[in-house]
């Protein structure tokens, strides 16, 4: 199968400052047509042409899944990151033409659930905004617990509490408010599913606490996009295409493969979906596996790598690509 995803040519219709750290971007189709519908929890991969560098970053869709007129995403500025969010914040203006992918959902609602219990931290709120809109139309039963640093940085807090005063609970870090997770997990009706999206620490906390409380693993859903890590440059031989490439310090292996004009499959670009899994033909050195896709056996076997987030340190690496 061919690599990549179906693409949509879009125009930036609107850029809105949500707060000091977050901007919202609205995309409409350049051809004037309708956007595809999607399911709450889906993301789109935004292509950023930043001079000679192309970045492809995934962002959760936050708009109403039933609204065919536009897609919206929210981007939190990360001054320490590899530059994708800074590009979106500093360079992208209304009227710009961009390319985004069709929606892909790696964080979908389990529609069998009698109740959807949601935990969001910071910018992790975005997939829930779409899920809540989807559930509201269908009369679904949900409850959101949303942790933010301060009132000023609480993206979409007002919108959520106004629309769903009885279902949305906000916790402010600066007021030392914390989600009482143990109590919440103890009192849920049978058939409840848990969803968590936020910083890694929060995801681990919710997953582990639920596990300790005897929740079935299959009733606990989480979305964690891993950003590709920077690291020392390294060289890679691509056996099939007969090329040797260098992966830059702030570049992912996948990005370097793409920059060399080699078609490689991907979906999430965050180490979660498994689509970019690549066979290792030979290596002398050590792998830095950053994904949560490969099994422990595959890692110790040193015969697979997820080029979207993982790196290599050593003398030689040959990939089947």
């Amino acid at each position, binding site marked *: *199968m*061919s690599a990549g*995803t*179906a693409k949509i040519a879009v125009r930036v219709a609107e850029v809105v400052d949500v707060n000091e750290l977050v901007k919202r971007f609205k995309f409409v189709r350049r051809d004037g047509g309708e956007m*595809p*519908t*999607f*399911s709450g*929890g*889906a993301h789109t991969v935004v292509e950023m042409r930043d001079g000679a560098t192309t970045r492809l970053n995934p962002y959760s869709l936050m708009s109403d*899944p*039933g609204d065919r007129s536009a897609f919206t995403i929210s981007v939190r500025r990360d001054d320490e990151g590899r530059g994708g969010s800074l590009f979106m914040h500093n360079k992208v203006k209304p009227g710009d033409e961009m390319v985004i992918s*069709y*929606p*892909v*959902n790696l964080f*979908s609602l*389990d*529609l*069998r659930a009698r109740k959807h219990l949601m935990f969001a931290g910071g910018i992790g709120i975005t997939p829930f905004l779409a899920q809540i809109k*989807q559930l509201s*139309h*269908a009369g679904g039963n949900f409850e959101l617990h949303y942790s933010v640093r301060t009132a000023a940085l609480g993206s979409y807090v007002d919108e959520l509490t106004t629309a769903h005063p009885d279902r949305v609970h906000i916790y402010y870090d600066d007021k030392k408010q914390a989600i009482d997770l143990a109590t919440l997990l103890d009192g849920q009706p049978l058939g409840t599913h848990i969803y968590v999206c936020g910083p890694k620490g929060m995801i681990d906390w919710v997953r582990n606490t639920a596990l300790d409380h005897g929740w079935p693993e*299959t009733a606990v859903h989480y979305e964690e996009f891993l950003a590709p890590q920077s690291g020392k440059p390294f060289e890679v031989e691509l056996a099939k295409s007969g090329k040797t490439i260098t992966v830059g310090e702030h570049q992912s292996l996948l990005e370097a493969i793409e920059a060399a004009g080699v078609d490689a499959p991907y*979906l999430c670009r965050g180490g979660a*979906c*498994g*689509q970019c899994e690549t066979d290792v033909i030979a290596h002398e050195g050590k792998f830095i596996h950053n994904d949560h896709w490969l099994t422990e056996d595959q890692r110790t076997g040193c015969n697979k790598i997820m080029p979207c987030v993982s790196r290599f340190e050593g003398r030689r690496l040959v990939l089947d690509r």
Partner: protein
Amino acid sequence: MTLQFNDETFTGDYTFRNSKEAIRRFPFPFHEDSYMYSVNLEPHKPGPKGSAYEHRFDVDEHYLSEMKDRARVLNDDPLRCQSLPHMDLAGWDTLELIMTSKAEDYPDLFELHRDGNRWRWVNKPMAIDQSFTFLDTSTLPCGPMEYILRQTQGDFAILDHRENNLWMDAGMVTTQADWSLDFDIGMNFMEWHAPVPLAHQLGVFERALKFLLNLQQGAPVRRLNWTMTVNPNLDTSPENYHKWGPEKTTITPENVGEKQHLRVELQTLWRLPRSNALLFPIRCYLIRLEDLVTVPKWGRRLHRVLRDLPVELATYKGFIRNRPVIVEYLSQFDDGAPTSPGCFPD
């Protein structure tokens, strides 16, 4: 497009016939002179004009008669159509996909008029004109999946995507090659494929599942599957095996060309947008051997494929008993000449 619909039966007197055009466009499944399981998926992009792949959902000369046969089977056995409670949204996805595709691909046969959620669907061949509210089941005579699939050729399974697996949680199945929705409902991908021989050892299902879990919206795929069926019987179901199973014993060297059919399934897979489920249409095409051999390449090739097929596969596909007669018949049409690559006629 001028499409003449046949008036024909798939049971009793079996008056089903393929026209010359239908023979020519038959989706012959063998691209070479042998067959083994593989993950043979390709993008479901529009194929050659006039072929079964030209449109997203093929409508052919058997449409009206197939819909009558479907209504008969559903009337006799309502469990051929099932949808677990959480699959309602996927049912609307299915209705939306089929209505929008058919109205675009066959504007002379189908119309869809949309004003927000107020929709009007016109199916001219079936003389249906239905106004309804999208996502409001009370405005249709039955559930959305059942409604549209009573007007669409082919079986459909809808697969819920969760727990890194696919679950057969809804569908309508009346033209199947000996499998049962009522038996498989609620099963996951590995469970419902458990009876298939050899393919598990080849790792086919692990690879196929991994691929399908990543199937994307806007990028449907297709594959062909095949078996052999005695008489043009669409409903070769386990539930009715006592009716069609014994027909296998009626094959003789004299009637094999007329009674024995190659049965091909055009299977497509679609990511459904609102529910994130997968839609799995399984469209059945039948062709009698004496019609098939009118395409010389197909006669040669089918002879070689069936002659050399492993015993396990001939057994699983249910024609081991009649294989000698079938192969003997087909051998008359195989002069040993080489065949060209690909499935299409020369």
